């Protein structure tokens, strides 16, 4: 059990390796069985990790026994474990969906998928900025490879944009790390947080540059305006399970902003306290606006879902900008909710396009779908969730954020933007739904069966939303604690130091 924090990284990694070696290699069936089993195991492990860090406080795993700040540490606190669990759940559903056939459209789907999960989990768990960079690269290279899964002009083109942009992003990341190490002289996030207030004036200016450059990197990952343009077409081009998994990728950026900027450049960073906040406010709000406009303009369900991701990112950034525990807690709830539902939407979009022949998931009149009813119900639920209509999780998230904004001076901006954007979503999505499901030219011809696995995957994702409401108090209590843990850093430092002195 002492090694629990590293399981979420090692498990998928080893799984991927084994799938590349005989006897598992070269058999898609064995891949599927093995991969699903591993993912279920991963979900259980992540749940355990979450519970243990929730009950016994932050778990710090010191790799190689080299105590911080010298060695690399994994920090499993409430926030990171929550993200890990979220990843595993989303991953499991996406993978189940893929097992219904999409994984055959290309090679190495399951190994790459596992590597992707490994990268994401690593990014969430690590307590070391350079190690964070390494895991960013792991999840990026895996996503590059997954994005072209299935092949086709669109994917290649989207991939070229995605890869090049992110390579530039990675080099900026390294510039930033160079600056930070060159001024602070450490890589361990907690240690950096302790050293930042002690910097001289000369170093401060430099460190600030480093911090802001990190915002660029994370903003690019999170698809924050003006770095979001790549997202819609990329996500729309990706094959459904990949797109669904990508729903968590933007959240990695958000998480990193939360982790790095709240910890290193947080309230108690002296002269460098909350350096990014003034930027986050306008950018976050504009991101919501752009996302909403995108939602209105989207000609297909995939693009709508992609733009909804942008809206959710904007909302999260705004919540972070509020820089108060209540807001962070709201952001965490909203993060869980939006990640799962956008994931579901990408899968539903795929179901739709498989059913409608040439019309695919575009908002054009077409023949009635053979299985309009079941998909329609799924879409209706997902729509309610994503618009933020009661009684599903969307409205809780929305209200949490609105309430958190009360008393903040920017409230006059936050409220209208958030409310109007959700009205826009309501308009756009109701149009989309009525067109796809009701405006039919003639009865369905022939039957396009839906593999049960796909339905199970979608159902699993959707049923999380009512659960988030029914057990709302439990979830919000948890996010409250996670938020306070993030903002009030003393317990974390102690637990690091208690490992740290030698």
């Amino acid at each position, binding site marked *: 059990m*002492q*090694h629990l924090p590293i399981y979420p990284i090692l498990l998928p*990694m*080893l799984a991927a390796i084994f799938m*590349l070696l*005989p006897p598992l*290699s070269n058999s898609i069936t064995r891949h599927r069985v093995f991969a699903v089993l591993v993912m279920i195991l991963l979900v259980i492990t992540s749940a355990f990790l979450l519970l243990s860090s929730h009950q016994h406080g932050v778990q710090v*795993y*010191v790799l*190689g026994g*080299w105590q911080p700040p010298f*060695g*690399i540490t994994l920090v499993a606190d409430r926030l990171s474990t929550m993200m890990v669990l979220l990843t595993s759940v989303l991953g499991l559903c996406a993978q189940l969906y893929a097992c219904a056939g999409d994984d*055959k*459209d290309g*090679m*190495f789907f399951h*190994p*790459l998928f596992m*590597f992707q999960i490994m990268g994401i989990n*690593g990014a969430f768990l690590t307590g070391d900025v*350079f*190690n964070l960079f*390494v895991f960013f*690269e*792991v999840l990026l290279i*895996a996503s590059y490879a997954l994005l072209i899964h299935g*092949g086709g002009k669109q994917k290649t083109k989207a991939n070229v*944009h995605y890869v090049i942009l992110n390579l*530039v*992003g990675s080099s*900026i990341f390294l510039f930033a790390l160079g600056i930070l190490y*060159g001024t602070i*002289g*450490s890589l361990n996030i907690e240690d950096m947080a302790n050293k930042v207030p002690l910097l001289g*004036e*000369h*170093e401060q*200016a*430099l460190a600030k540059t480093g911090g802001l*450059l990190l915002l*660029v990197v994370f903003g690019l990952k999170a698809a924050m305006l*003006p*770095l979001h*343009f790549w997202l819609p077409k990329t996500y729309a081009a990706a094959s459904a399970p990949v797109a669904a998994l990508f729903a968590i990728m933007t959240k990695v950026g958000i998480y990193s902003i939360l982790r790095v900027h709240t910890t290193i450049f947080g309230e108690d960073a002296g002269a460098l306290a909350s350096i990014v906040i003034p*930027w986050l406010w306008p950018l976050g709000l504009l991101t919501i606006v752009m996302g909403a406009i*995108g939602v*209105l*303009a989207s000609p297909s369900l995939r693009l709508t879902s992609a733009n909804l991701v942008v809206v959710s990112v904007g909302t999260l950034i705004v919540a972070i900008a509020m820089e108060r525990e209540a807001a962070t807690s709201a952001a965490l709830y909203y993060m869980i909710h939006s990640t799962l539902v956008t994931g579901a939407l990408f899968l539903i979009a795929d179901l739709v396009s498989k059913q409608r022949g040439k019309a695919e998931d575009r908002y054009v009149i077409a023949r009635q779908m053979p299985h309009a009813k079941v998909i329609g119900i799924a879409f209706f639920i997902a729509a309610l969730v994503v618009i933020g209509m*009661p009684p599903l999780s969307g409205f809780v998230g929305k*209200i949490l954020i609105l309430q958190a904004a*009360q008393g903040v001076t920017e409230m006059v901006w936050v409220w209208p933007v958030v*409310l109007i954007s959700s*009205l826009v979503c309501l*308009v756009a999505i*109701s149009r989309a739904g*009525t067109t796809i499901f*009701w*405006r039919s030219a003639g009865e369905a011809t022939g039957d396009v069966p839906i593999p049960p696995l796909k339905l199970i995957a979608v159902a699993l994702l959707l049923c999380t939303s009512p659960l988030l409401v029914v057990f709302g*108090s439990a979830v919000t209590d948890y996010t409250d604690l996670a938020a306070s843990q993030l903002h009030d850093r003393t317990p974390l430092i102690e637990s690091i130091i208690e490992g740290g002195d030698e």
Partner: protein
Amino acid sequence: MNLLWVVLLPLIGTLVPLLTERFGRNACAFSVAILPAWSLILVFMYAGNIFDGEAVRQTIDWIPAIGLDLSFRLDGLSLLFLLLILGIGLLVILYARYYLSSKDSMGQFYAYLMLFMSAMVGIVISNNLIQLWMFWELTSISSFLLISFWSHKSDARKGARMALTVTGAGGLALLAGLLLIANIVDSYDLDTVLASGDLIRSHAAYPVALVLVLLGAFTKSAQFPFHFWLPHAMAAPTPVSAYLHSATMVKAGIFLMARFYPALAGTDLWFIIVSITGLITLLLGAYIALFKHDLKGLLAYSTISHLGLITLLLGLNSDLAAVAAVFHVINHAIFKASLFMAAGIIDHESGSRDMRKLNGLMKYMPYTATLAIVAALSMAGVPLLNGFLSKEMFFAETLNLSMLGSLSWLIPLLATVGAAFSVAYSLRFIHDVFFNGEPIDLPKTPKEPPRYMKVPVEILVALCLLVGIFPAFVVGDLLNVASASLLINGLPTYSLAVWHGLNIPLFMSILAMVGGITIYYNRRHLFQFQSQFDEPDAKHIFEGVIQRVVKASEYIIDLLENGSLQRYIFLLLLFTLTMAAVPLFNLTQNAGSRPQIPIDAVTITGAVLMILSAIATVVWHRRRFLALIFLSVVGLVVSLAFAHFSAPDLALTQLSVEIVTIILLLLALFFLPQSTLKESSNRRLSGDLFVAGMIGCVIGTICYAMLTTPLNTISDFFLANSKTGGGGTNVVNVILVDFRGFDTLGEITVLGIAALGIFKLIAKMRIYMPTRDDKGRAWSNDPHPMMFEMVSQSLLPLALLVSVYIFLRGHNVPGGGFIAGLITAVAIIQQYIAHGVHWIKPRVKVDYQWLIAGGILIATATGLGSWIFDKPFLSTWFDYFNLPWIGEFELASAMLFDLGVYLTVVGAVMLILANLGKLTTSERIVTKEND
């Protein structure tokens, strides 16, 4: 048994029809009716306490974080609305059983209906703001489903969307308003809110909150200017209209105003907004109703007008007016529901709703006609019918108004005019449909409907009469308790009598009657007058607006997301520049206090060489081969720089990576255009150059500032512990395989994944193979020159030996698994180049994919090994042994780890290059899967 069940039963009822549908229509309808009936009985059980003037409450905690509890409160007002919702709901269930055709999915219909019913019930018994809003939105959703029940019809879809959009927008406004109120009173508890009216009214945020809440109410209750959605909601099946637009949906807004009356009403702002809106709506609705040829259209606008009347009454800020409002809620619900049902019967039995065709139905359906006529008279406010009483009270109220000062006489006047018009359209409903000659080509000959289809209408019409004749006896108590929950400081004295003696209100009624009749008889002129304005179709306008918004946003998106990578990168760099430059403004002096190293000639030459070749790369970037050569020069100088500044490991690595990269780029260049023409406009070039240059300056400045700033880092620890703790003297290598071995593990994983991805890419690549370069010269026809073959073959063992040596020494002096791996790879690649794939294939029988996986596995396994000794992942172990002849040597787990690195590197590089090379031959990869 508790309040929760009142709402829970109908909610469960949502599932019932879906299950019982298969047992036939009667069974289905009956089973659906059970649960709401039960819930109605529960309400009756509570009625006792309510009439004793106490409110029943119940609270269950739910999500305290957002102030949401399951909290219920049953007082007079709730009781009244519950009776309407559940009572009329039951009648509608019975009615719908006969109305729906066999083509319609009855189960679905009833499911939606029950969902809507539970939502309404939820609204009226909520004692928690958030919960109230939750049910409020649920009504929007379920009404959307009901209106669009015939989803194949465009009207239904459009009407439903419009209703959803308008009410949804109102819902969001309401949410904002409720949150504000909750913030003012610091509680989401309705009791608290209603108790602290003064606090709210005196608070600065009151106007905003009031407007937001009223927006919610007005949109829901179709008040001007949001009234336009209601007529288009008539696309719904008539039972839905009978339910939503008489007793429930549209009354939700009224309920909201009544509910918050104690907390929000009583101010001038309230009076101005509410009463004026109500008045306008009252007149507008009444006027338009007269010109509607569609039966349901007429009823829809009359509903709007009556809702306006109730709103006006609520807006008057007088206790009696409030009582009148509540009374009219009851009456309107009763007669309007029966009228809608009657209209439905007529439509059902005659196949038309057009009053220009429907004439003289009295002959064909005398019974239904009588019922309809009574209801219509009640709508017109004829004495001895319930409509009359509330209208009298309304007139009485309009008289004792002084708010508008000297203009106060206007309100009674306008009220009378409105009343006159409602008399007129009621007359039209009666006369046009049931008398006025013979029907004109109806689809089918009208006849009486099935027996039980009339029952609901009969009950309601009976109520019209009963209330109209014995008001105090029938509804007196109900009205009292209901009004009591609006008026916290006690009820005013009023009498529910049919006859109040000769007074002005009676006179006004008579005036309205006469006026109405005159209007109706001279309607021709009015119709002509009206026909000169073309009637605007709200549906088209609304859709048009939405369309325009969509177009606009499409335009914006095309403008910004134009799919040009160059623009995206430009934006990225611009943003980067801003972020990096801004803080430098408070960087007072660039140079720090750290002593600097003097410049020497050698370094200068190196630097100049590097700069020149970098620039050359840029200048000749369109002549790609040339650019590549300059690039490699830069790479060489970089590795020299590393060597110069005492980083031998880096130098070696950079060098070997350099070689492999260049081979790779050369291979790629073979498949890509050798050169391209200038295609960027000078404007773009200068722009790009500027941004790139600026970033270069910023980075350079930072670099200089950083280099000249003293720094104490955590590195001393590594220097101190490298030998003792890591068992190696080459600190860099020890850091890689031990202190930060986890990074290295990730790094080789990246390499492995990249190889897999590239394999994936190549596998599906069907690329054109140029036979001659862009100057038209054919590529050499002797790919494997003799000399080269000999040399490279003899070089192979040497190269392998070198890599083994580099590998072994790595831990203590520059070297290590990575470099060794690259050297091996290069050596093998050389064989490929020299002999070609065909020669290698039978000789090298390694699956590179396994090599990669194996490598990472070994590295990971090494890390896992430490678990056996109960140490954390990647804890290393080393020891020194003494063997005869060989002498002392060291064994370290780090070596095993490094072996993993070595294998991965070899595997990855080979997987990439070998397969890439294969592209040029017939040995392209063919895969089992269609990749």
